[in-house]
């Protein structure tokens, strides 16, 4: 790991301590590749913060601040206000980001406040579907029937009882001019969406699905294929809402959800018996309804 200097202008450097196959590290690098250096990033507490900034080292080549688990949105509001107040509005755009726990759960009140204030901040939720930094606990974005350490599968339970909280829909309901989803298996799509988001003024929301081999229980070499299967099965549709209207949705050849679920140990309890098979049917219905909702014609 290198300490950043003005001469060393790589935006996100290697040498950090992310696990092998970390989808989050990959996503963060792709995002900054798309934004370029004129950004200030506010990072919520979580894996990304921990594995990039063990004092005195930092992996970041952009101005970066971490304060708390749940205040990234309000800190971003303050940074953005300061730039305007000090006449430095052209110096940088402000990005706030955090994991699914920081975004959908503990920090959500602050994000809603920021959206309502219509602050010129791009908010990125890196969604790995659980509190991975603290040991794979359930979050509001943990998928239906996923096993986590606080929604464990057991003799009388088949994992997480709730469906994912629909943050993109909540973002659209706040009147955001730009809301999109992306994932690391489609880097061009991700890059295009980040660039598009940076063209828009006001609050913008991007939710990026980032596989976590440790938390999902798949091989570290399968990060990209899991990311791809999440889209192909319809469980993580990729779309854009511009000014409240569905603008684009990725067309994919629909695959059965089992292809996505089977390689991940967090879903292995669903493959034990008939009760599990019933749950897989319900998960297939979620996927089907996503296909219908985003008017994505499945390529047969």
């Amino acid at each position, binding site marked *: 790991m290198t300490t*950043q200097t*003005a001469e060393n202008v790589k935006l996100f450097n290697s040498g950090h301590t992310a696990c092998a196959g970390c989808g989050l590290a990959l996503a963060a690098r792709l995002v900054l590749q798309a934004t370029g*250096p*004129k*950004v*200030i990033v*506010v*990072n919520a507490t979580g894996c990304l*913060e*921990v594995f990039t*900034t*063990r*004092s*005195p080292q*930092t992996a*970041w*080549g*952009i*101005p*970066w*601040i*971490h*304060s*708390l688990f*749940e*205040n990234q*949105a*309000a*800190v*971003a*509001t*303050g*940074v*953005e*206000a*300061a*730039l*305007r*107040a*000090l006449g*430095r509005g052209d*110096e*940088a755009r402000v990005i706030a980001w955090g994991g699914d726990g920081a975004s959908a759960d503990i920090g959500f*009140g*602050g994000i*809603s*406040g920021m959206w*309502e*204030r219509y602050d010129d901040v791009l908010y990125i939720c890196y969604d790995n579907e659980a509190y991975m930094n603290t040991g794979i606990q359930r979050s509001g974005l943990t998928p239906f029937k996923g096993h986590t350490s606080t929604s464990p599968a057991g003799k009388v339970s088949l994992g997480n009882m709730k469906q994912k909280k629909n943050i993109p829909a909540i973002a659209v309901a706040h009147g955001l001019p730009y809301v999109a989803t992306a994932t690391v298996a489609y880097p061009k799509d991700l890059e295009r969406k980040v660039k598009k988001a940076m063209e828009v003024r006001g609050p913008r929301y991007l939710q990026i699905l980032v596989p976590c081999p440790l938390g999902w229980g798949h091989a570290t070499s399968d990060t990209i294929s899991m990311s791809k299967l999440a889209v192909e099965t319809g469980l993580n549709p990729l779309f854009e809402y511009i000014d409240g209207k569905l603008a684009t949705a990725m067309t994919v050849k629909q695959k059965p959800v089992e292809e996505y679920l089977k390689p991940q140990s967090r879903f292995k309890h669903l493959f034990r018996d008939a009760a599990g098979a019933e749950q897989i049917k319900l998960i297939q219905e979620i996927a089907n309804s996503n296909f219908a909702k985003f008017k994505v014609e499945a390529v047969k």
Partner: protein
Amino acid sequence: MKKVTEGLKAVAESVALCRPDVISAYPITPQTHIVEELAQIVADGKLKCEFINVESEFSAASTVLGASAAGARAYTATSSQGLLLMMEVLYNMAGMRLPVVITDANRAVSAPINIWSDWQDAITVRDAGLIMMYAEDNQDCCDMHYQAFKIAEDPEVQLPVMVNMDGFILTHAFDPIDFPSQADIDKYLPKFKPLDFLSANNPRSFGLMGGPDRYLETRYAMAETFKSITPVILKAADDFKKMFGRYSGGMIEEYRMEDAETVLVSMGSTISDLKEAVDTMREKGKKIGVLKIRILRPYPAAEIKQALSRCKRVICVEKAISLGGPGILAAELKSAIYSNANKPEVSNFIIGLGGRDVKQDHIFELVEKAEKGVCETEFIGLDMKLVEEMDK
């Protein structure tokens, strides 16, 4: 120029004179008039400033934290539950060495919910790493704000400062206030020059993780900073006096203590009540004085130790309580005087919680009690009939 002004509005006008770049706050009684007035000052174009309405005190504190980290002079105000909601951010702000100024309108903490004055809110955050100032009256409070920004932003300090004013007793009291001119304040408090700030022209990382290999040293550095803040606080008051002719400063203040056998120790507006009672008791020949703790953090242990080296009896009068523990002011004071050759006896009394009036008779009563023997965490002014009813 002197102008009869409500305490909160006077604070707002004083803060505006300090030209903050970013203000963010959330309404809570009895602080609200400060931010209402500041919002109006900004709306009228009298102050060029980003005034940010947020959805909670937690976000208000976080917003000024972000603004300060980006190089802005930032301000917020709160009270009671709001301060407690800010608490996590306050620790973080101090640890990140961000010189934000915060006004706290001191108010009781729920339950039962109570909007009236005591010190429980701010006392509860005393370990966060904030410099804590307590105003005796509203002129003092205004002068503290000019000095607070100067102290916070001093390159040797770089810490948040909290100015405490008693809810209602000060916040809603109308007093003639002497406001300095903008030109003079600009001279006293030049533009904020942060040592380091978030900038795309100099990309740096803020808020890094400090593991077991670094955390101890980081906290040590903060503790060391607190040891060297006193001269900065004293100089801010001296410079203020040179420019405005008024001394509003010191870590502590002694009142009629020259030959005092008994010394009443307290903070904030209670000091005025104690001074009045001492004047009355002096007329009757009692050798009694008052010691005001003006700065609670850094704790002026050396000054207190010196000031209490001659008396026989100390009486701490407190408007907060550590439930299940000793009186807070008393405990700290005892540790400050422990090494004195002459150790006075120390009593402490809890008064005025939740806005209960502190009457002169209450003060005479507690002095009388302490003279009979040491009292520990004794409540004064209780309605014993009500206590019995509640017991049932």
